[in-house]
């Protein structure tokens, strides 16, 4: 029953995508109503599913249904759906944000030459994302993982006439690929050991101790690689800011609320896979990401870039939360963040739309009079992300900080205390840069009078989503249902039933003591951040320029985003070139040099010895030299660019390997 609903939830966007991509242009209004209405139907269905799932009010609620997909000899690969509380929440988030973004896009993308295709892509993305959160196995999640990657690629590069957009799309795709390769190897590793892709079966194998040790850690870290790529974690975070080249609603949907959170979801879904060691790495990566991104966001002038770095930073928070064992906190933040970050992006989109596609905050200012609805909703979201008490962001961020502190107190290691300190400092930074953006955009005097004069409040298709999201931002954090329903999975859950009860009692406990301290500190830092931002940008007591000049080196460092792009350009991109050049040089100088040197030395030596000796040794050496020379020449010849030569070599290598294998057996 519920499964049928979920199947429809997933399939409907696929159907609308198919119709839209082929016939979209022919439909009335270029077919925008079709994916939009489909998404609202999806939202309705997701609400029904959530209602059915939550009415059970059981943390262990789960429905899994699968069918045999591929039968390979003795191994059967199953494919199916897994619906539990987490899935229900994710379905709700995705359909909510997606439907609102669809609605928003009707206004925002109005008049675009590829209007219909845009909606087709949005549908494709929705399909992939909904599939991603509902499948019950690694292979399925990988497939949908790649599908969201593709739709993200298509949407980032939607305005591919812009060179920066097409480059950004390529960058996003390639950087993600780095993580995905790791993830794929991880999946293969898991399959090689457990012979199954199914989550429950894999976890069962882990619970029973069949799959443990260094390999398990390795598998966990490899899977996490995928999350690093997709959730833009350090060191693969560089693609997300560039991805802002896509249309702003896309940034809201894909690059803020849903797809980038897929990494977090992945870690959450496969949580039992991660050993303590793996979790340490995860926590570290998350914290580093949160901090780095926040520092960069402080100096950005492009409103979308600020939000992008803020997204990275918040994703870092979630990952860090999962890493320190704050499973519930991390996923809770995922949900609240989806609301307020989508709101922020759509708000930014509304501003950008009003400013005629101006994204630079130095050109804005004073817009609160012109865009009242946008301003209010943006303010709510900013307060939420900054951790102002009473809003959803406060609850979730607070839970994360509490989890971090709790973990630190539990283990007592410096490492974990450092994580907590960094996170709480970053919370202050977050408040600072978000309010900086708010003040620069909406307060003060208009810095570009002409654009200011032309600015106007967006149409209702754009403001309604803002209001709806603002509502969820306010109320999203209340109630303890999330904490009670989404419970940290433990290994015991996947072993036999008897052990289950015991496991429940052990979970969650230490965090409570830390809660109060964390809360006080977090409020303190949040208001400090807001206050400082107000000092600089609202009351203008101090000049930001002066500070940036004073700390010019630091400013440049941050302005250049810690030089990550340059670093990668210098290492990864140029490294490949350098490596090949080095190999060429090695071939030319060292090998030839050795050969020449050997030959010369031997000739000298052989001159010293008599003629008989001379001939033998010389002959031998020449032979060696010729062999080596031939080898070098042959190796150089290999790269002919001729397909047939490659086939020949591949076959030769194949035969060689086969013979070697035969010899070994």
């Amino acid at each position: 029953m519920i499964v049928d609903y979920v199947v429809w939830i997933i399939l409907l966007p696929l159907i609308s995508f198919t119709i839209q991509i082929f016939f979209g242009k022919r439909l009335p209004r270029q077919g925008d109503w079709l994916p939009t209405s489909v998404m609202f139907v999806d939202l309705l269905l997701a609400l029904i599913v959530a209602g059915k799932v939550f009415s059970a009010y059981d943390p262990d609620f789960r429905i899994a249904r699968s069918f045999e997909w591929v039968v390979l000899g003795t191994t059967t690969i199953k494919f199916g759906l897994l619906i539990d509380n987490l899935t229900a929440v994710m379905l709700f988030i995705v359909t909510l944000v997606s439907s609102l973004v669809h609605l928003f896009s009707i206004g925002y993308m109005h008049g675009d030459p590829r209007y219909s295709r845009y909606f087709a892509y949005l549908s494709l993305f929705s399909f992939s994302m909904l599939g991603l959160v509902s499948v019950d196995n690694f292979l399925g999640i990988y497939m949908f993982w790649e599908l969201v990657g593709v739709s993200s690629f298509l949407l980032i590069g939607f305005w591919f006439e812009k060179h920066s957009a097409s480059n950004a799309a390529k960058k996003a795709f390639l950087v993600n690929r780095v993580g995905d390769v790791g993830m794929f190897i991880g999946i293969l590793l898991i399959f090689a050991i457990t012979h199954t892709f199914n989550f429950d079966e894999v976890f069962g194998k882990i619970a029973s101790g069949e799959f443990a040790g260094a390999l398990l850690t390795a598998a966990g870290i490899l899977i996490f690689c995928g999350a690093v790529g997709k959730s833009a974690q350090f060191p693969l975070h560089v693609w997300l800011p560039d991805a802002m080249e896509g249309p702003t609603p896309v940034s809201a949907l894909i690059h803020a609320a849903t797809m980038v959170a897929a990494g977090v979801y992945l870690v959450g879904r496969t949580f039992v896979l991660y050993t303590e060691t793996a979790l340490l790495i995860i926590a570290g990566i998350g914290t580093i990401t949160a901090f780095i991104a926040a520092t960069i966001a402080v100096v950005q002038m492009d409103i979308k870039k600020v939000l992008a770095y803020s997204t990275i930073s918040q994703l870092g928070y979630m990952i860090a939360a999962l890493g320190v064992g704050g499973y519930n906190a991390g996923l809770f933040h995922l949900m609240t963040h989806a609301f307020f970050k989508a709101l922020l992006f759509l708000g930014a989109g509304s501003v950008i739309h009003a400013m005629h596609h101006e994204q630079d905050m130095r050109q804005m200012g004073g817009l609160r009079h012109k865009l009242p609805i946008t301003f209010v909703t943006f303010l709510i979201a900013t307060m939420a992300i900054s951790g102002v008490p009473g809003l959803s962001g406060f609850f979730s961020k607070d839970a994360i900080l509490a989890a971090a502190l709790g973990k630190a107190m539990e283990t007592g290691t410096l490492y974990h205390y450092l994580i907590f300190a960094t996170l709480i400092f970053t919370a202050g930074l977050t408040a600072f840069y978000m309010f900086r953006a708010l003040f620069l955009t909406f307060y003060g005097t208009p810095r570009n009078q002409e654009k200011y004069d032309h600015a106007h409040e967006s149409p209702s298709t754009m403001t309604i989503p803002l209001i709806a999201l603002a509502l969820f931002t306010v109320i999203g954090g209340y109630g303890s249902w999330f904490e009670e329903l989404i419970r940290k999975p433990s290994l015991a859950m996947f072993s036999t039933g008897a052990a289950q009860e015991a496991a429940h009692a052990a979970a969650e406990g230490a965090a409570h003591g830390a809660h109060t301290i964390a809360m006080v500190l977090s409020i303190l830092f949040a208001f400090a951040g807001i206050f400082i931002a107000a000092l600089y940008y609202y009351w203008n007591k101090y000049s930001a320029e002066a500070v940036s000049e004073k700390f010019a080196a630091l400013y440049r460092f941050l302005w250049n985003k810690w030089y990550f792009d340059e670093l990668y350009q210098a290492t990864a991109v140029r490294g490949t070139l350098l490596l090949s050049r080095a190999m060429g040089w090695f071939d030319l100088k060292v090998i030839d040099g050795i050969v020449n040197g050997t030959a010369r030395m031997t000739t000298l030596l052989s001159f010293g010895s008599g003629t008989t000796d001379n001939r033998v040794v010389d002959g031998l050496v020449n032979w060696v030299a010729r062999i080596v020379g031939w080898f070098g020449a042959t190796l150089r010849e290999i790269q002919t660019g001729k397909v047939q030569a490659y086939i020949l070599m591949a076959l030769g290598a194949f035969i060689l390997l086969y013979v070697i294998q035969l010899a070994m057996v």
Partner: protein
Amino acid sequence: MMAVGLHHFLVLSALLFVLGLLAVITKKNAVTVLMGIELILNAANINFIAFSRYVDTDLDGQLFALFVIITAAAAAAVALAIVLNIYKQMRSVNLDEADTLAG
């Protein structure tokens, strides 16, 4: 000489496969390379059908072979179109000259 059985067909298939392969790796002309590929596909089909007769008695092998033939037809059509395009671009269909992509 033993009565003709599965092994005979498999060896024949191996022989045709190798000959097709030889055409693929030694011929300069792209069309002949394509012919080699067709021969390779036929060798595979002999295997399929031989297994379908001698090992697995239902018709799975034959159905596989049927789909292989269909795919081969589609592939040949497209490949030849590509070859004709290459010819148009380079005035030659010799594969050893079509190495523009080599660095």
